[in-house]
């Protein structure tokens, strides 16, 4: 693999995520900036419960396809970005564990920040991914549901 090649690494998996591995993978000799976002399972709920874990549900093929649509748009909008990785965990995610990692490398930091933020915002709005909050003695789908949109609708 040519390490300077533009590339994407998209995974939806029931395994624990490895943010360090993901960030290491996007690192390139011609890039001075790697921005990594980790979405971690929070104990706080909109409900009156102390959350102990989250459960994420999706169809892996469908979710990976939609994530790849997002990374394609990131690359169009920030052509200097070298490598983009998006890993999403499904199934049970204990509080403080990482549910989603986005990592982006680019020669300079501004584009890496912009691209990473757009990428996670777009993943949240366009990828089918349902979150269930689990507390001692119960569970419920997370509130504040919103329609899934197409990534093309996010570009103004």
């Amino acid at each position, binding site marked *: 693999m040519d390490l300077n090649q533009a590339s994407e690494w998209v995974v939806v998996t029931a395994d624990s995520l490895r943010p360090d591995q993901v960030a290491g993978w996007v690192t390139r000799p011609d890039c001075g900036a790697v921005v990594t976002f980790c979405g971690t399972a929070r104990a706080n709920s909109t409900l009156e419960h102390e959350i102990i874990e989250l459960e994420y*549900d*999706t*169809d892996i093929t*469908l979710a990976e*396809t*939609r994530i790849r649509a997002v990374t394609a748009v990131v690359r169009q909008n920030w052509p200097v970005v070298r490598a983009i990785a998006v890993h999403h965990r499904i199934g049970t995610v204990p509080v403080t564990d990482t549910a989603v990692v986005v990592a982006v490398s680019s020669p300079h930091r501004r584009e890496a920040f912009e691209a990473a933020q757009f990428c996670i915002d777009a993943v*949240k709005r366009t*990828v*089918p*991914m*349902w*979150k269930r909050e689990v507390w001692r003695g119960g569970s419920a*789908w*997370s*509130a*504040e*549901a*919103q*329609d*899934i949109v*197409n990534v093309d609708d996010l570009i103004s």
Partner: protein
Amino acid sequence: MSRLLLLGPAREAAGVRRAEFPGDTVADVIERAVERFGPTFAEIVALSHLWVNGDDAARDHVVGPSDEIAVVPPVSGG
């Protein structure tokens, strides 16, 4: 006959992730699914997008045995 993929709350209400139902359009197939899975499922379907092979589709979209209809409820934000 079309394959149905039920996601998140739709899967939970139906009790299954995948099913097959007869029907020539999205609306036909969904109607059969609602008959089988009941009123809670029907409520969720009413709020959901329906995708055919990964893309938004109208209810009168014609489907065949190689098509997959996904019931895509709203996702939790955050």
